[in-house]
């Protein structure tokens, strides 16, 4: 028996879909077990019928609905609601769907501020009125999926590792939806923590961290946060390395920025990080700014326009 799957991307970049494709040969195995009934990136099923003559968006019934991206405009909302209606189970795929993701950085601004800038850059012939004909109207901000529809399974990540996309899909098909454990990136990070030190200031990532030799394994490198670089590992959900375990950015000797969202679904990465730094007597004024600590989780009203 095959399971029917519908997939949609809303306020998204397609990275989550590419992660799905990056399963490689496992994708061919998955295709033996699932029947895609709707997936715009790979398949020509249309919203308004194949000849475009229907009035409302229609998505076929499915056992599993996968949605990437947050909800930014009225069409996203209509699609999300139709997916919820037609699918027995909804998976929020990727951090945009679970927490707003990078596009929710726009939540620090009003729509007019965003439009004013976009349509007045130095190369733009500024229009008298902003485009609207045949276009979906923007909502007041970017929403995570669960602010508008019920979500059954959360699979954060920017993008989620293809190993996790595979285990989630395989798990669902066998009736055991896989969820990521409530571990932080630090819990999964093999770098060496010495635990003591008199770090007072954080440095911006403008130089290479210290390591002893080009081929020194990551588990011999001194923790980047303890080296004085801002690293969001303590307040970010772990698992980004997939089956190979190591956090992906750390393995490139680059500090974490929080792309799996908060460790607990309703955590606040910015506040949790500032608290963690303050309780370790690290001067939070040494950070050049703090909005971007919420860069992956600006939905759920975590970021709002300044009054």
């Amino acid at each position, binding site marked *: 028996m095959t399971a029917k799957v519908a997939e949609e991307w809303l306020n998204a970049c397609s990275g989550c879909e590419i992660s799905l494709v990056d399963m490689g040969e496992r994708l061919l195995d998955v295709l033996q077990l699932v029947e895609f009934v709707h997936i715009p990136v*790979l398949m*020509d099923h249309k919203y308004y019928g194949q000849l475009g003559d229907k009035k409302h968006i229609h998505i076929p019934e499915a056992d599993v609905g996968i949605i990437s991206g947050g909800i*930014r405009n009225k069409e996203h909302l209509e699609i999300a609601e139709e997916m919820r209606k037609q699918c027995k189970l909804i998976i929020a795929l990727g951090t945009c769907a679970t927490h707003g993701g990078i596009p929710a950085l726009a939540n620090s601004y009003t729509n007019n501020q965003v439009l004013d800038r976009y349509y007045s850059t130095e190369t733009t012939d500024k229009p008298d009125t902003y485009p609207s004909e045949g276009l979906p109207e923007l909502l007041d901000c970017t929403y995570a999926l669960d602010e508008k529809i019920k979500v059954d399974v959360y699979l954060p990540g920017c993008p989620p590792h293809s190993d996790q996309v595979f285990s989630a899909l395989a798990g669902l098909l066998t009736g055991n939806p896989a969820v990521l454990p409530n571990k932080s990136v630090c819990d999964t990070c093999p770098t060496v923590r010495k635990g003591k030190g008199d770090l007072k200031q954080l440095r911006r990532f403008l*130089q*290479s961290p210290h390591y002893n030799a080009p081929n020194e394994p990551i588990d011999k490198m001194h923790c980047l946060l303890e080296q004085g670089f801002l690293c969001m590992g303590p307040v970010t959900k772990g698992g980004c390395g997939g089956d190979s375990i190591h956090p992906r950015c750390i393995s490139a000797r680059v500090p974490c920025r929080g792309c799996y969202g908060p460790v607990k679904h309703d955590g606040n990465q910015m506040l949790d990080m500032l608290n963690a730094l303050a309780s370790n007597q690290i001067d939070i004024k040494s950070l050049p700014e703090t909005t971007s600590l919420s860069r992956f989780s600006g939905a759920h009203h975590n970021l709002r326009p300044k009054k």
Partner: protein
Amino acid sequence: MAQVINIAPITRIEGHAQIAIKLDDDGNVADSKVHFQSLRGFEKFVEGKPAEEIPRIVNRICGICPWHHHLASNKAVDKCFGATPPPAGHKLRELMQTIAHAEDKLLHFFFLASADFVIGPDSDYKVRNVIGVAQANPELATKVVKTRQMTKMILEKFAGKAIHPVAGVVGGFAKPMVEEDRKEILAKMEEVLEFALFTINFAKTEVFPKYLDTVKTLGVITTGFLGTVDDQGALNLYDGKLRMMKPDGTFTDFSVDNYADYLGEHVEPYSYGKMPYAKFWNEGFSLDLDKPKGVYRSNCLARINVADKMATPLAQAELEEFRKLFGRPAQATLLYHWARLIEEVYACEHAIELLKDTSITDTNIRAKVEPKAGRGVGCVEAPRGTLIHDYSTDENGLITRANMIVGTTHNLGPINMSVNQAARLLIQKGKVDEGILNKIEMSVRAYDP
């Protein structure tokens, strides 16, 4: 009675768009519009953020070409801060970008486009996709899926993240390449080159000949072209000067630092996406099929049109064969597919060149950088076209102003023209079927938007 036909969403493309075709009382095409529906506002929300963080933010503009945003952004921030990456830092960036190109083109040709040719433009939509292609050709599908994933995983294994990368850093690259990595990646890229050659030969013998009539007619428009070339006039994906070619083949070279003197962006009421045009031609902007104004195209067909030659031997031989058949500049829109496979060969050959030079393992990969006030324009050729990031910073190195012109954006005007042309060609006296609507979409898919 007047009628509007909606193709929504346009499928097997990477972005969000819909088509509306208006028919007149006789059922002929009166007008068509392509609605580009995404608006996220990166230009606004990068303001106030530390410039060195931007390459890790703007890569989210596109999950298919994040390396290119990441690197154009790094180049812009380098310039803002007056940083000069050491040679190996640039080489590692370029290698990652070139391998990302090689992977991207396989993705587009096999996963998104091939169904129209292998299964057929008029076939049932339920099998007219990569799943149908895999079922019809399981052996080929396995080879494609394996090779593409191997290419992609080179990026993940070496640089940590393949999608939304982090390894490009202001001042250079985050980690050096050791000899073992170099040998391993070189061996893999030699395998990818072999597959690239198989693919272009497969396309030239099994695919394109069957569709030559379609290629010569569907979505055909006449425009200028934009791309990047090196000092010798050879196609370059990572760096060089911009070249804008007019439809008659004459061209102007300019530095990307001055892009705003040459390019403008027009706004149409039916598209959130803006439409760049060649401002310096001083003819304004029009998408009129017979008399377009200011319209040029980007992406692979544009790049191989503006280039005098390809810098690698196998790709050069392919270009010569292509030019003998279609001239310079080649205008037929479906030739994007052919041009893409020529670039695929180039990307593989060039990655191999970079890897054969052992200086890529130099451990001096990153200059130490101080934040400061400045302005920087960074540019690379993304798979979908010339990608420009332009930032200003204040004395703390925070972004005060950003402008971005993204690869696909250059083609939004031309896509409208190709759809209009295809609709007029195929829809007559109100007769519309699924095959016709899919063929109109094929004129969009060629641009890989």
